[in-house]
């Protein structure tokens, strides 16, 4: 038996916003420790890893580890039945091939129950190396979102470079060439508005901009986000949800002459 109740049910809604444009079907791994998900987008350039700790839930119960496959587009539709202030309970009986979502209003006068069939999704479980990164930048999520949206009206590719002073996003296209720099800044009262740079080595990497725009759909999850970079490694874009867990996006860098790397 699996059962878990979230007081803020719309957290799952927000998580799905960021996931469903990247991955359409995925396995959720249920374990006594919590719920996690790891999936690659269809072109194998990006990977998403979600972790929701058991502590994040009220009444978390998972009798045995299990992997359940769901269509994320359908899940998003179903989540529309949840009001923004509703609690959400997930239930899955080990002997059955479906999951039940229950949404209850705070006043307990509305009770919605939705049942979805599970899917059988074939997937390998791959480990993500625990890299130490050359540069870690924390900045307001809304600012990151704005920057990647703005740049995507100019170019397709973004070059991210971090120095001790800040992080610069650059692109170019028919319209022109743009550079946006966010400087280290801890003068604001609210910590969520700070921009901080943690640097081992300066690093410059290039990525497909449209993926960053997709990642930024998780902006509502957290006021701050972080970008972690290392030479020739995938960037990690993280939205931490306090003590509850996190969602991490990994994006492989673009390399001009890829052929030479093909013979690994």
């Amino acid at each position: 038996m699996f059962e878990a109740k979230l007081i803020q049910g719309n957290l799952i809604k927000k998580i799905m916003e960021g996931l469903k444009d990247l991955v359409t079907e995925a396995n959720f791994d249920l374990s006594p420790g919590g719920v996690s998900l790891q999936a690659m987008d269809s072109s194998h350039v990006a990977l998403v890893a979600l972790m929701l700790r058991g502590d994040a839930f009220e009444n978390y119960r998972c009798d045995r580890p299990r992997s359940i496959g769901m269509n994320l587009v359908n899940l998003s539709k179903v989540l529309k039945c949840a009001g923004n202030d509703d609690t959400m309970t997930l239930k899955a009986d080990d002997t059955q091939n479906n999951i039940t979502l229950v949404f209850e209003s705070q006043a307990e006068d509305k009770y919605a129950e939705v049942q979805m069939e599970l899917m059988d999704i074939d997937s390998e479980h791959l480990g993500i190396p625990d890299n130490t990164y050359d540069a870690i930048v924390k900045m307001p999520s809304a600012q990151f979102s704005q920057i990647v949206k703005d740049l995507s009206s100019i170019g397709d590719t973004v070059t991210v470079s971090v120095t001790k002073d800040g992080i610069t996003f650059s692109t170019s296209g028919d319209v022109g060439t743009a550079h946006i720099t966010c400087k280290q800044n801890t003068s604001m009262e609210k910590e969520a508005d700070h921009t901080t740079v943690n640097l081992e080595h300066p690093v410059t990497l290039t990525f497909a901009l449209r993926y960053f725009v997709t990642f930024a759909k998780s902006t509502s999850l957290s006021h701050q986000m972080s970008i972690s970079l290392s030479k020739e490694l995938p960037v990690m874009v993280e939205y931490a949800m306090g003590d509850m867990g996190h969602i991490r996006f990994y994006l492989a860098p673009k390399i001009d002459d890829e052929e030479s790397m093909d013979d690994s």
Partner: protein
Amino acid sequence: FPSATEKLAKREEVVAMCVLKMVPREGQRGRYMLLKRPASGLLAGLWEFPTIPIEGGDTTCTHRQSKMDEYLQAGCGTPLGKPPKKLKVLRRHDVGTAVHLFSHIRMTMHVEMLVVEGGQEAAEAAEKAGVRWVAEGEMGSFGLTTMVRKAFKLAEDRKREGTDMMQYLKGNKRQAR
């Protein structure tokens, strides 16, 4: 002087095309499948990626892939699925759409990339009359039509969106979590 409106509108045609690559292991170089067109008709006797007509306007990914699966199995003897009887699919995704103009046809090509696992031996075994497995490095020198080159370019361009995430993970593949 020219007679403008006498020229006819081209016939519209829609096809699905599959750039099928067989690699010994994910992340390694492989071989592309090419088929020989019939001895008569359009582009007679030339080599192409597996190509099927899409009729009735349903150009969804799902529809095209299921039609292509049938064609690969029935027409080319290349069934997808689980080894050892079938070819294991490592990766499959659309890489874009291109238009090619013939004198009397306007052809819209929906191109997908399909990577399957299999060594050189598998490729050689699968080679039969009208099927050729061409090594990645030799695609440039193999005589390909403009249409096939366009499809290949789409697949190559998409690859350039980023390197394959798999290569960053494979070291950990066998690690316990």
